[in-house]
């Protein structure tokens, strides 16, 4: 059994990463410097950010912390191999912005102290990352970026890639681009994220990767990401229907995947 509480006591992003099984050293890449600063235990910016977010949220939304605990405990009581982390993810997502505090508290290992077996803990991590991504609160982005880059489990990195792609600001885009190189151990997760980042540079990088990919499985995954990013359905959302960047993305992808 691996417990939350005994493992983590400090409100640092490094602790978040430790809890999620992250590696100690930052991955190489264009974003390495920024992430390195973020995950240094003594890195004041992030340390203060996470701690201050949780503190402020606990004051502003004490009920959300209580609800979070109830959701997790009910989920634990209903554990079923067929109906697992999706159930938790859905419940946490519906906490909305008020859920960011308790969720960050939980990934830091201070908010939910019940001992969990490794499998359950992994499922909970996946659900937390996914729910934080769905909520799209910018306060969670530093943690999500670091989790994407450093989480030990592939499943968590993939979910984190999608989570940051939902926002896909400049920092998130840069991070995904930096990790998308073929040789990078995080490339699959990055490609998954880029395929959901509705930004022209994401499409352009995917096109380049598609052209250079040798491995058929990798090439298919990139093509799938390109289809997703250029999907008419995605760009049919009322607020995006006339988005010029969307039109440009579709052109780029059409040139890459269309008949030569």
């Amino acid at each position: 059994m691996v417990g939350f509480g005994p493992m983590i006591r400090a409100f640092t992003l490094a602790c978040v990463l430790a809890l999620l099984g992250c590696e100690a050293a930052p991955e190489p890449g264009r974003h390495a410097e920024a992430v390195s600063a973020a995950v240094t235990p003594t890195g004041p910016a992030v340390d203060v950010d996470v701690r201050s977010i949780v503190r402020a949220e606990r004051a502003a939304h004490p009920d959300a912390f209580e609800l979070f605990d109830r959701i997790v405990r009910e989920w634990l009581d209903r554990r079923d191999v067929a109906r697992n982390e999706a159930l938790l993810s859905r419940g946490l997502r519906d906490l909305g912005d008020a859920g960011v505090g308790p969720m960050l508290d939980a990934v830091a290992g201070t908010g939910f102290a019940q001992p969990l077996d490794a499998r359950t803990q992994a499922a909970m991590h996946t659900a937390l990352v996914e729910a934080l991504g769905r909520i799209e609160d910018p306060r969670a982005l530093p943690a999500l970026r670091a989790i994407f880059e450093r989480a030990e489990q592939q499943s968590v990195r993939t979910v984190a890639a999608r989570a940051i792609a939902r926002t896909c600001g400049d920092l998130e885009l840069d991070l995904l681009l930096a990790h998308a190189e073929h040789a990078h151990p995080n490339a699959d997760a990055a490609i998954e994220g880029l395929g959901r980042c509705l930004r022209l540079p994401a499409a352009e990088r995917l096109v380049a990767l598609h052209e250079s990919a040798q491995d058929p499985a990798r090439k298919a995954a990139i093509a799938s990401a390109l289809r997703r990013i250029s999907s008419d359905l995605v760009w049919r959302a009322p607020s995006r229907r006339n988005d010029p960047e969307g039109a440009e993305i579709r052109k780029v992808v059409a040139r890459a995947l269309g008949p030569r």
Partner: protein
Amino acid sequence: MRRTVAIAWLLAGCEAGPYRHEATGDGGPDPTDAGVIANDLRVDTDRDGRLTRADDVGEETWEAEGGAIFLANVDDDDDDGIADAVDAIVNGEADARDLAHVEITAWPSAPEGTTGTLSLVTVAPSRVRFFRQAGATWTALAALPALTTADLQGGVTLGVEGTALLSDSLWDGRIEIGLAVTDAAGAALLEETVEMRQASMVIAWNSAPTTIVHVSDLGWNADNQILRDAVQQATDDVGILHWFINSGDDDYVYVDPDGFRIADQWTQDFFEMGATYMPGDGVWQRLGVGIRLKPPQNSGYFVEKEIFGIDNGHVYPFSDPYDGWRDGASLDYGGNLEVVPPHEGYPAGRILAGTHGNRLLDPVLEAFLQAQYAQAPILEADTNWLVVGHIDEAVGFVEDPLSERGWKATLTAPREAWAMLEGLVEDDPDNADLVLFNGLYFWTDTGFPSAEITVGEILEDVDLAAANEEAQGHADDIKALLMTEAGLVEGDFVYLPFLWEPYGSGPSGELRQVAYIPGTVNLLTFNGVAMLPEPFGPRVGGEDVFERVTRDRLEALGLDVRFVDNWNLYHRLLGEVHCGTQTDRTIPRETAWWDSAR
């Protein structure tokens, strides 16, 4: 060589004179004919429940057109908690009815010194047991007996049973019984063989007549009460039974790996009902089979405790030890075990299950299902895109008595669902504010954020849009599979629109999906009734748009359509009405499962 032709021996110089024993044609020895060797090895080859001369036709080879059948005697007719096939005792008249008869007809004028030898050829002799009848008594045989002159003069009746259900590829259920008769000098008078086969288990399909509907009884739970009330009303209306399973019973509550004891509302998942059938004289002999599923949980122990008994057996076909947390474990649930109703080449239907890549059925369960030759091989659909992974989430089958086929496939239609929402807004931009899931919560019912969402908010969710487009691709794959493998055509499908929602629940974090709007494909149907989850979609003119479309399409088939609020206990916990119910059905009398013999 399996096929052995019975031989007609012309006994030159024989005292009784020339005789004729034909293995083909409508004949066979008639004991009243002088000079004919009247012994005949007789089984119910023509499957009419009677042993007659007509059974000699085609007796050497078991095939779709003919061949005698015997049952695995897995029920417990003396109700002692031990399957009848486990002991070597015929436990009363009911047990005797489960035996298939093998007759050596009488040859009253058999000369003294004439003897007979019975032989058994099978790869699995330990899986069959023979009894010999003497009046009302049946005595187990350690081996097939040598037949004395008196036996041949008076005739002998044997009974045969299988000791267990077919379970693997090592034995397909066939046995060959031989009879050799020799005179006092040892000269061969007769050699004859017949081939019998143990009955395949058959799982009745959703459009087959239903006798019982099961629902777990979580007595304290109001949401479970809603479903039970609906099932009670509907079963009463059509005059069949309902069985509310006491899920608080300590013996078969769900026990999770940490020892938590949970009443299990997923009735569809923890067991399935099958049956084996043997032709009888005027009525088939049927043994129900409760298939315990969802290992290693205790929920399915229900079948052993409650269903196992007179005319009902049980089986628990899983690896031991069983890894209950492997990715594919969810596929070993009853919701992932469906049957495509009868179609060309499969007069008793075909097993349909979801699998994919590394997410596979337990190998013992798969072997067990593949051994049920009447409905095998398993038709495998890709359900790896589903969080839960059960085939009943995406496709189902309902009666359609007006059609030639008699049934239709109900298939998820996410693209249409999305288009319906877009259409609402195109019709009137104010419809973007219409609310789905009005007054509902995804997590308990008080104090938590509402599940309510507007049409406009859904249409803005690009991840949801992409997920539903992908879901449509998977639905199209299932449709193509059914068209290719079962010969369905466009008109055989009924499309039920609802949306899916993605979660990163695959082992590598890949997205899998679960019904976002209650999944109406996951419906319970029986005897003209279709009971579906209430979709809680946007309402226009006071009517739920998804409910209206779904109702219209199913009522057009003549079904009595009933929507049930299954939100709290089922939908929000990733299941629907079908997941929460189980049925016991019988295959229609006109369906002779053996016609599909492979």
